[in-house]
Structure formats: structure tokens, C-alpha cells
């Protein structure tokens, strides 16, 4: 078996992802200096950071049905496994306005602990380092991630869920998923845009994929560019939706 085939097989067996040989060739060509022992690991990391539409090969059983969003179907099942990436996450258990207020508290460097307002920005801390910690986290375990999470949790933005996700398969088909039961790692703070999920045997009701820990495996990852613009634009989007409600 060639190195390429070996890597493809390893990714397939560890993550269930069917990586496109073209994408893998490009990856190997662009990273000639990576040592063999970490090659597969690095490839997996890159796949999770990639856009599935470019990195996966598609076959009819690993993509969403074309009419998935059709609301006339009361219930049907997706055999899968179907790898998807997250394009949007929303907390439908909290009001939009309470989410805006939470964002504004973070902007002011404050968090709420009970009745106490806590300052979260510590003097001299390098915000850049925290921002980039995820990338570093791929090669070594970084403390930065832990910090960032601690801050995010302390911000008390509810994060109660359930969450409504917009998912996209390797063919580019989009669908709405709702977290019917708590899934570890699915929170506004922890789940990045472009994060990857694997669906196995999920139920679809009225065009909505019902997500629960039984049918959903969180593979992790993110698409940097999407994630950044999503975060930057989140408050404005929430405000726009609030305004739109007022007009309705």
C-alpha cells in the first residue's frame, strides 16, 4: 500500500472520514517537511480545519438527501454515516436580547458571578496568545485554550441550549439540526464554526435533523476564516434579528 493509501485508510478507520485523494496529494505536496510518524495526525488536523466540500470525496450514502429540508416528511432516518460541518450555531433556549447583553458584558471585560460583577481582563495578558491557542493546541497541549474557555464560561451567557445548528455536507447541501439532548461540546463558546460532526442513524422530522449523543459524534476542528467572521458579526446579526422582530 502506498503512503497515501495508508493515510487515507488510517483517517477512514479513526475518524470515519473518506478523504479525497486529490486533496491529500495537495496537502502532502504543500507540507514536504512533516515527519512520517506525525503525518497522519497532521493530516487529520488539516482535514478538520478544512472545508469538507474540498477535502472529502462524496458518495451517495455519505451525503444528505437533496430534499432533506422538505417539511412534509413527518419522520425519516438517515443511515449515514454522514460527515457534516457546522455553519451556524444558535442558542434557542435564551432570548436574543439576553445574548446581546452577554456579549456586551464580555466587550466591557466583565462577567457575572451571582450578583458579583467580575473583571475578566487581567492586566498584561496577551489577548493574541489566547486567540491563537487553538492552533497551537494541535501540536501541543496549550494552557491558552483552558484560559479562553474559563473566561467564556465565566461570562455566564447562559449557554443552556438547546442549540440550533446549520449543518453542511461534503456536497454543499445545508440542513437545520436541533440538539434534542445535551451533546457534550455543543455550546456557543466551545463549538467553532466549521467544526465537524459525524451523523449515524439520525432521525429527520419535518425537515429538521434531531441531534442527540446517540447519533452525533463531535469530531472537532474549525474553519478559521468562517469562525472569525461569524464571531465578529454575531452581535450585529443578533441586533438585526431583534430589529426585524420589531417590524414584524
Amino acid at each position, binding site marked *: 500500500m502506498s503512503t497515501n493509501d495508508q493515510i487515507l485508510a488510517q483517517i477512514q478507520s479513526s475518524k470515519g472520514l473518506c478523504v479525497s485523494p486529490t486533496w491529500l496529494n495537495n496537502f502532502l505536496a504543500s507540507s514536504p517537511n512533516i515527519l512520517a510518524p506525525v503525518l497522519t495526525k497532521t493530516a487529520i488536523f488539516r482535514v478538520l480545519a478544512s472545508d469538507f466540500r474540498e477535502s472529502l470525496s462524496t458518495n451517495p450514502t455519505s451525503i444528505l438527501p437533496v430534499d432533506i429540508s422538505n417539511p412534509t416528511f413527518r419522520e425519516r432516518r438517515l443511515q449515514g454515516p454522514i460527515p457534516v460541518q457546522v455553519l451556524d450555531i444558535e442558542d434557542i*433556549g435564551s432570548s*436574543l436580547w439576553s445574548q446581546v447583553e452577554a456579549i456586551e458584558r464580555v466587550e466591557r471585560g466583565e462577567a457575572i458571578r451571582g*450578583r458579583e460583577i467580575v473583571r475578566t481582563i487581567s492586566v498584561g495578558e496577551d489577548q493574541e496568545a489566547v486567540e491563537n491557542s487553538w492552533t497551537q493546541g494541535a501540536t501541543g497541549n496549550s494552557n491558552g485554550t483552558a484560559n479562553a474557555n474559563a473566561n467564556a464560561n465565566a461570562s455566564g451567557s447562559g449557554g443552556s441550549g438547546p442549540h440550533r445548528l446549520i449543518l453542511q455536507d461534503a456536497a454543499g447541501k445545508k440542513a437545520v439540526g436541533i440538539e434534542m439532548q445535551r451533546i457534550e461540546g455543543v455550546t456557543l463558546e466551545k463549538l467553532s464554526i466549521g467544526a465537524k460532526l459525524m451523523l449515524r442513524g439520525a432521525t429527520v422530522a419535518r425537515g429538521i435533523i434531531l441531534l442527540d449523543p446517540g447519533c452525533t459524534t463531535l469530531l472537532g476542528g474549525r474553519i478559521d476564516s468562517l469562525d472569525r467572521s461569524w464571531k465578529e458579526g454575531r452581535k450585529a446579526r443578533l441586533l438585526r434579528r431583534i430589529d426585524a422582530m420589531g417590524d414584524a
Partner: protein
Amino acid sequence: MARKILCVAEKPAIARAVATHLSGGSFQTHSIRGNQYVKNYEFDFNFGGPWGNCSVTMTSVIGHLTGLDFDRQYKGWMSCPPGALFEAPVQEDVDKDKLPIAENIQNQARYSKALFIWTDCDREGEHIGSEVRNQAKKGNARIEVKRAKFSNTERAHVLQAARGPVNLDEYQANAVAARIELDLRIGAAFTRLQTLQLQAVAEILKEKIISYGSCQFPTLGFVVDRYLRVKNFKPETFWGIKVMLQREGKKVNFLWKRVHLFDRVAVIMMLERCLIAKEANVVKVVQKPKSKWRPLPLTTVDLQMMGSRFLRIDSQTIMKVAEALYTKGYISYPRTETDQFDKAIDLKKLVEKQFPDNSWGQYARELIDGKFRTPRWGRNNDKAHPPIHPVAWVSPNQLNANEKKVYEFVTRRFLACCSDDAKGQGTDIEIQYGEEFFHANGLIVLERNYLDVYVYDKWESSQELPTFERGETFEPTEANIFEGKTTAPNYLTEPELIGLMDANGIGTDATMAEHIAKIKDREYVVTNKRGSGRTSVEELIPTRLGIALVEGYDNVVSGLPNSISLSKPFLRKEMELRMLEICAGTKTRQDVVQQSLDMYREVFIHTQRRIDMLKTACRKYLVDDATS
């Protein structure tokens, strides 16, 4: 040689109360020259131990003797740039109207072997004690100085304090001295800066002094913050599922575990899946004893919060009334953070004292006849004072209306602490319907216990639930979607504000009420009545000036890394923490003053540089908006 001991209390009423107890009621009263309130009481008392029988002069001060101020050349508003006040020399002088009192102490000290300080046992009292000592030493450099440790003016307690004096706590006195200096410098610098700069901005500020205080401003900040949250609030629609079952002639409403969601389509889909399932499954039936806990022993913050909620008296008035009750010897010292009753206190004896009361005397009797329980043990102990409790019974017709209310509250609370929890039987039923979970809860109150005396708490039986068995299934009578709208928070009330100040380290339990009174006084905040009758609440609403100041200071630091607005509690909290370090002996007064001044000086420089932010905010609210 007859030994003479000079005793000095913080207020005339305490001096009189202590003199009465020590002398057994027979003492001579002498007026002092130049002050009509302070008296000298003379009598003999046997202190026991090394002191033995002594002749005693018991007198008092009236609060602080001295004040700190800038040297004369800095007193004029135009005498120096406001920023110079961070370093300008200051001096401590006896207040002009207190000179006769200071003189009296000097004179009396001259003939005394020892000075016993009877100021209130808290930080402020420790500092006043140090002022008294300084005056006494002026009259008699060799006078021995002791301090009586007491927390109420009940007779046995006072006698015990007289016979076991301790030393003055210098650390605490130093902490107060540091706070006084910081308040003076920071307060004067910012007050002058903002007053001089803002007076010209709007007509109505022309003659106004716009005062700044490092506690006042964060207090105002809380009020403005809530006000803006109310103003900016946007209502949103939510949807939920409610399930009802008719059984045994009763209607049982099941509540959705998700409460409600903000996505209509999702809720419709979830309801449909319930309906498809048809049958609901009872997954949990729990019968369990429930109890409502009796309250914790009473602290000052609790007295102010509960008091303003239940008695409808503002916190400052409550504290004044409580002071009066303490001075008259009816309740223990009302400034305390402690919510644990020391094991040594004979609580039953205190309960017995309430026997004569018409309203709760019978209840007190029942406690002694077997229902007495040791109070719950809270988490706070200031190591100085016990929780607030009645020390003697007083007939209601000896009290004015407010005193009656506060005494009643303190007493009912105390009796409640010594009672058993209220007990009941609770039933929790949980059902799974489709993929969704719902629950119904029932409660039957079996024993009211403390609730009988603590009329401020409510705990009532709910409607009785029909019988359910785990594992049984049923088809709900109704399952529907309901719709609702989020509502804006209410404006801040005083109890909430006290809670926020407490949690954020603004002021001490002793001073919070004053800060709130101050921002009303300065016209930064007004009160407004919400609702009517028994359910009415006083709300705090900022004035245009109040909003302008907060917005102005927020804008001054906006965009500056690591700069904190004066409307936020963080700077003051740091300062407060450093005071504690002085008390613990880990930092000196000088260190703390310098560090805190540096912190505020930085904000001062930003404020000076970006003063236009403040002016713009004032113009926006006081000139442009004033006409709208």
C-alpha cells in the same frame, strides 16, 4: 490613693447606659463646659483583678473628634490644580465644635490612672478610640490605655466587658485612617475637577457642586446600569408546551422541562413528536420530606435588605432606628457581619426575656417548653459582634412606629432562628412524553414551626396531586403550545442595590446606606413608587445628570487598555481589599495610601485629558435632551 479610671464612650447615650450599669444606678452627673450633650458621670466601681475598686468618670465623644483637611493654602477651589490634591499636605485637627469635648478628656485624663475606651467595637470605633487616646495622652502622657470589648448594652455583658479590658487594635484604627485620607484626596480632586469643568456646560449646573466619591460613583453606576437595561430592553416571543391530565376529578398541569424556547418551528416539531407518541410514561414519582429552612442569624446587610423589603423603610432609616434601639439597650450592636451565634451565648435566656410580649410571648414560651433548636450556623464571622438579636424586652408603647417595626423584625427573626425548620411532604412527578420531559410538583405543609413567628416568609401547600405510579402510562387530556413574551427587568430597588454593593465590595455594612442616601441627596438618583398599597416598591431611577456622569466616565476610559471606569466597582473594591490587609497587619497604612492613590491618579490623568467626553455627555443629557 484612690485610683481613678476615665471611661469614654462613642456617644452620650452609651456613656449613660454603661454608667447606669456599672454604678448600679447611682452616679453624679456633671455638665461639661461648651457642649450640652456630653456629660461626665461619676461613681465607684470594682473592676476586680489588678484594678480593684476605683472611682470612675464616664464620659463620651460624639463620633469622630478630628477631621482631616488640606492645609489652608489648598482649601480654595482655585488655589491649586485639582490634581495637586493627590499630594498636597494634609493635617488632622480636632473639629472646632468638638474642642470642648477634647478638652474635657484632657482634663479628666490628668487625674486618671487609666483610660478605658468604650467606643463601638468596629473599625470606625477603633479609630475613634485612637483619637480619644491621643487627647487623653495630651493631658496625661503616662495614662494606661485599655479598651472594653462589648457588643450590646445589656447589664451582665457590660459588667463583663468592664472587668476584662483588652488593647486597642491599632491595625483597624490605621485602616480607617487610610480610608479617611484616600476619601479626602480622591474625593476632593475629582469633585473639584468635574465641578469646575462641568459648571459651564449647562445652565442648571452653574451653581452646583458635582461631588465625587469612590463609593458613591459605583453605587450610581449600578442604578444607571439597570436603568439602561430597562430602557434598551427588547421583548421577544417564546413558545412552550403544556400538558394537562384530568384524573380523580383534578386537573394536573405538567410543566415542560425546557420551560420555553425561542424557536417556534422547533417547538411545533417537538409537540408533534409528543402527540405521535400518544402515551406519556411516568418516569419518576418521588415522595420526599421537604423543609423550608429557618433564616440565618441576622447580619447588618440582611437587616437592611429584608428591612427595606418587608418593613418598607429605607436602609438608612433602618440603621438609624436600629442604632437607637441598641443605644437604649434593647438590641445588640446593629453593625455586624456575623451570622453565627457563639456557643457561649445563652440563647434560651434571651428567648425567655420575650415572654411578656403579647404578640410573640406565647411563641417564646413554646420554644422554651421544648421546641427550642440551636440556630443554623452561617458562613460569616467578623470576630467582633454577634448576629443582631434582642437583648431585652420592651413594651411596644415605649417605642415609636419605626422602632416598633424594626424591634419586631429583629425579635421575630431571632425567635425564628431558635425554631425548627418548617416541614412538609413534597411530591415530584416526572413524565416522558415522546422525547420531551415534563414535571408536576405538589407540596403539603405539615409543620409550620418557625413560619408561625417569622411572618415575613411564605410557604403554602399546593393543590393536592392525584396518585401516580412509576412506570404507568397515560394519554394526556391536553397538550398545547403556549406563547409568551419576555419582559424588561424592573428598575433597581434598594434591597437589590444593597445586595449588589455587598457582592461587589462597595462600602461596608456600616456605610452602604449612607452611600445610597448620598446619591439621592446629590440628585444623581430619584426614587419612584412602583405599584400601590402593600405591594408597592421604591425604585431607584437615575437623573439626567446621573446618567450623563456615568456615560461620561465610561467614555473617558473607553478604548484605553486596562483602564477602569469610575462608574464600575473594581477600583473601590481593590481599595477595600487593601484595607483588610491593613487590618490583618500584612500591609502598612502608608503603602496602601500610596498604591491606591496611584491607581486613582491614573484615572484622574485620563479624565483630565479626555474631559471633553464628560462635557459631551452632560451636554447631551442636560442641554440637548432637556428640552425633549
